[in-house]
């Protein structure tokens, strides 16, 4: 349903974040991108919804072909793609409900969004908050919530788009281990229930093993492993977590 084809990204400071990475993602799968920080996980995820534009290569989806075809294509693709961020990216002074409603913006034209959201949207947002167990906190300001609750609001905001594809960039990296398992479990359960294809970047091996249908290992901007968690043997783990300089080409300075 989604594929990266020979994607390379070179940032303005000439850092090569991705080096002709190619992967195919099947419909309905829960895929984990595994790698150390700096391996290119965030960059690859951001290529999947065009927040980062590949320097070369392309991103294809079943529905549109290349997502960079036109700005309309890109927006339509983003509308169907939810994203959960490491630091949740909420607006602290708005309520949880208002933050979730942000996920419904793209259904409306510019001027219509100047009016308040209608009852149907508010109800839908509240139902989604309920699915992540936060219906009772809907009217609390986002900055009054705990870290785990904030990330659940982040998940609810992405779900409010009714996406067919969900991207999550280190969604549990700033949470304690127990909360991390719960929040990732919520994301996994909800995406499973709704049949949403999901790509999550993680750096914790145990979490990847626990939830992934498939693990894609990244190191130094390259795909070094791609298989079911059961096939992840010690040797492949070493490749993913190897020290740069030891076995990997160092990113260009």
């Amino acid at each position: 349903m989604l594929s990266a084809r020979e994607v390379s990204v070179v940032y303005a400071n000439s850092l090569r974040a991705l080096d002709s990475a190619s992967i195919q993602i099947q419909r309905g799968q829960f895929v984990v991108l595994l790698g150390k920080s700096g391996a290119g996980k965030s960059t690859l995820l951001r290529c999947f919804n065009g927040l980062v534009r590949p320097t070369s290569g392309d991103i294809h989806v079943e529905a549109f072909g290349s997502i960079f075809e036109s700005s309309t294509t890109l927006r339509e693709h983003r509308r169907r793609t939810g994203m959960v961020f490491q630091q949740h990216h909420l607006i602290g002074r708005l309520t949880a409900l208002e933050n979730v409603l942000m996920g419904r913006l793209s259904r409306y034209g510019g001027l219509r969004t100047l009016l308040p959201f209608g009852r149907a949207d508010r109800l839908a947002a509240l139902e989604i908050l309920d699915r992540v167990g936060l219906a009772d906190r809907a009217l609390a300001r986002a900055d009054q919530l705990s870290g785990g609750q904030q990330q659940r609001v982040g998940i609810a905001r992405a779900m409010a788009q009714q996406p067919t594809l969900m991207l999550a960039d280190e969604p549990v990296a700033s949470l304690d281990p127990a909360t991390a398992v719960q929040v990732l479990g919520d994301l996994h359960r909800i995406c499973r229930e709704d049949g949403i294809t999901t790509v999550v970047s993680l750096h914790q091996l145990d979490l990847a093993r626990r939830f992934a249908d498939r693990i894609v290992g990244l190191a130094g901007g390259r795909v070094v492993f791609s298989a079911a968690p059961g096939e992840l043997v010690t040797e492949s783990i070493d490749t993913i977590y190897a020290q740069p300089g030891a076995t990997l080409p160092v990113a260009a300075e």
Partner: protein
Amino acid sequence: MNRAAFYETVLVSERKAARRSSVLVGAILLASIAALATTGFFDAQRFAEAGPAIRQLASEMVPPDFGRWQSWLRPLLDTLAMSIAGTVLAVMLSLPLALLAAPNTSPHATVYFITRTLLAFLRSVPEIILGVLFVAAVGFGALPGVLALALHSVGMVGKFYAEAIEHVDPKPLEAARAAGASPFQVITHAVLPQVLPQLTDVTIYRWEYHFRASAVLGIVGAGGIGFELMAALRLLNYDQVSAILLSILACVLVVDSIGAFLRKSLK
């Protein structure tokens, strides 16, 4: 390098830094004295002569004469209306200009530069000059005062708005973009919710300022209580002048406390 030599270099650079800052302080001191001298502050003669004149004026101002208070009510209300109308117009013009003048929402570097320049220009024309121009253009009354207040304030308010917008947290913006929001929706739903408290603050402060400024604008014929103040001054009715000043003070206090109340309840 041995330790002693190293200590010596540290001490030398410390001394250099101290000398640099004392030169700077000295220069500021010198400029201050020069400014006071140029403006005649050290002319003891003039201060000596000022004493009796001030005493004379003060005695004419006391007691304040509130006899004509009924004819000041309408001008005071006019001044209040001018301050509100001027603020509304300033906000309506400032918001779109600020979005063009903030680097993170401006569509193009050229637009950014032109808008910044326009705002700086509006700021640098004093409202009293704008008042004179608008009185000539649209005639006496509150209208030229409102236009002058609004136009001058756009320069100030637009700049403050732009600075608030410039410093928003970019993370919610990325989230909105990822959700497929259009650039316009990113502004209305990710930028503005973050800066609303600051914008409100600036706006209320500006309203308070407008009330004081519109009192002055009356002097050039732009309506309001300033017009009455000028008339009393021309007729040398200093007891009425002090009464009007006290009325303005009372209104300023009221406006400021309404502003404080709004600020608290709009947080």
